[in-house]
């Protein structure tokens, strides 16, 4: 199933990625080819098959819930982007509007 321009724009939006017009054009063609190739999976009969999320023979792995030291505030904030730190906080644009 070929993917069209609008779908690429919509999905890129869901993925929070700004694309240039040139990228939309190029990716639409390239992703159509890839999706055509993966669509061949439809040929495989899986009507009675359960999906595999992990090949590991492990389930519900637990560990002791013991307190241990984590990162300090400074360590956690050390990689904040330029303009992205305000004292002991990450700084982001406001998302809630005043009423």
């Amino acid at each position, binding site marked *: 199933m070929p993917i069209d321009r609008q779908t690429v724009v919509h999905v890129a939006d869901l993925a929070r990625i700004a694309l240039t017009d040139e990228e939309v054009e190029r990716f639409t063609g390239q992703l159509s*080819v890839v999706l055509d*190739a993966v669509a061949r999976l439809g040929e495989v009969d899986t009507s009675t098959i359960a999906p595999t999320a992990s090949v590991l023979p492990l389930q519900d792995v637990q560990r002791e819930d013991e307190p241990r030291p984590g990162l300090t505030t400074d360590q956690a904030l050390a*990689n904040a982007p330029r303009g992205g730190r305000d004292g002991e906080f990450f700084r982001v644009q406001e998302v809630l509007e005043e009423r």
Partner: protein
Amino acid sequence: MTALPPSIVDAAKLLRARKTSSLELTEAALSRAHADRFNTWLLLADDHARAQAKVADERLNRGDAPLLCGIPWACKDIIGTKGIETTAASRILKGYVPPYSATVVERLDAEGAVMVGKTNLDEFAMGSSNENSAFGPVKNPWCVERVPGGSSGGSAVAVAADEVLFALGTDTGGSIRQPAALSGVAGMKPTYGRVSRYGVVAFASSLDQVGPFTHTVEDAAIVCEALFGKDPHDATTMPLAREDLRRDLAKGVKGLRIGVPKEFFIEGMEPGVEKAVRDALRELERQGANIVEVSLSLTDHGLAVYYIIQPAEASSNLARYDGVRYGLRAEGPDLLETYRRTRGQGFGAEVKRRMILGTYALSAGYYDAYYVKAQKVRTLIKAEFDAAFAKCDAIVTPTSPTVAFKIGQKVNDPLAMYLNDVFTLPGNIAGLPGISIPCGLSDGLPVGLQIMANSFAEATMFRVAAAYERATPHHQARPERKAA
């Protein structure tokens, strides 16, 4: 000393005979790495390496040092290193300095190994040629117009060009084995669950494993012994006891059943690759192995399964790069636009393609048709391997259908690029261990032989690889001897 010894085992002997020191090996590695012509390195940690070497020498002098003590190694720059920049070869992580090290790095630190620097890769390990690095492609030392393979191209070349004695890579669909094949070194992906992924930049979490590049099979086993084992920080590591992975190296292959999947000798395989692999199978047969045909009829579909599950998991993992807590931030008029611009400017083309592909496969209306369907075929692929390993002890195949191709040749054809991994990614889908070792040259370029074994049967895989290596000279071939 200007050259490094040919293997970890040789270096360890020289260190114990006091014929060299860790500092001397480290200076040799650094001087070779600084003279590198292949864009192998994203960062050289001279001071860090020298400090580690001095500590290693003290430990060696005390006489109770592990085999990797004092050995210089290279770290793929997708593996976090405390206090040392880790970029995943992406603009979005440029300048990121991890506040902690990956468990694999801590384990090698504990052995006393000396980390020389961070190697180039395809951005976020997405690629098979190393052309997707935000910091330029890595070149193949056998022919600088050609790719070294990917995504762990820098780590493969650091070993191939004798700049270090081993390197770590990560393998999600072939990213250790395929560059090992194209660059003429050994590269090994462990069974899923053997090695901790804690502190490694996550790509596709149900497929990713860390593993070594070395010149010899024994060296690969030595590094694996240091890496393997449960980590409380990674719930997907198996609680298995420490294992001597070298116990069967000298046993030979007499009486072992070697499976050859008929579906792996496909159209599009280069004749020189097929010949080298068939010669290798004859060598194993000559040593007394029984060659048996096995069927992996879903090999073709493996590529489709992989190119749904892998981008789907990646699109989820890479959601964390939002410009808020670390990395690049490209500010827009509001937070949503900041996310979009940050990711639009921070990610390269291949990463964006996979984010879109993965988001699409997980989106409403397509989830069952793509993602769940792929997971069901994954079940069938695993079952086919189970059936094959009921008939054989190891499976031997080519690592990649071609030798190293020209830089630029496949960059605009994602599907052609993805086909490079057609023989390696089934091992990731089924979680199996696999090693690629050199098995000769085709038109002067290295060919890789892949040996896969059942889950957690690395010792058998190493046994077959070592038997082949003992009888052939291919692991001794070096690019320089040919190029000069």
